[in-house]
């Protein structure tokens, strides 16, 4: 069951903040966040595990709300390099044996 990402697209000025959400109607084991630039492969950002802590590095962090079955990706003080399409990938069973089900993506454009 495909997770729902929102918003579909965001246009920001450099330095502004963004939040991207990923919701599932089915209980999640983990949520994986990726960024993909045009013509390139998706790049792993972070993974949120059920029962785990909020994660982050530099100005990108994420949280996982088990009650809502939702994860949010936070981009603070955005930089031009943050532009791209962000995908959440969901795992419903855990154990690393399953591939991921991806949302439709959120297009992020950072303008100078």
């Amino acid at each position: 069951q495909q997770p729902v990402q929102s918003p579909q697209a965001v246009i920001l000025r450099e330095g502004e903040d963004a939040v991207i959400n990923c919701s599932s109607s089915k209980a999640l084991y983990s949520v994986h966040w990726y960024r993909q630039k045009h013509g390139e492969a998706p790049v792993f950002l972070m993974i949120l595990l059920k029962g785990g802590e909020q994660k982050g590095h530099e100005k990108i962090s994420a949280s996982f709300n088990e009650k809502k079955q939702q994860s949010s990706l936070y981009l603070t003080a955005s930089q031009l390099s943050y532009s791209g399409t962000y995908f959440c990938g969901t795992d419903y069973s855990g154990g690393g044996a399953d591939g991921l089900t991806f949302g439709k993506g959120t297009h992020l454009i950072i303008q100078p």
Partner: protein
Amino acid sequence: SAVISQKPSRDICQRGTSLTIQCQVDSQVTMMFWYRQQPGQSLTLIATANQGSEATYESGFVIDKFPISRPNLTFSTLTVSNMSPEDSSIYLCSVDVGTGSYEQYFGPGTRLTVT
């Protein structure tokens, strides 16, 4: 993480022919996955390839169309058989690095155009 390579990086093929895509990893991994990404779309899981067992296919994907081999812990192939223009996509392999972190990393992809 892991260093993953794919061959070919791109190809243009005639309809009715087959193409085999190779995925090579620089370390031994248990789980490898094959995805398809149609132009401007999200990623869709084709199958899971576990060394030593038959690949597991997702709904809508069949072994006759997308046969997969996984001869060892660092290598896998995906064949796109009897191609049609609808098979034009980017095909990506990914691996679970198997450190217990469940992180999955993608190869650079193979861009396939069927004419």
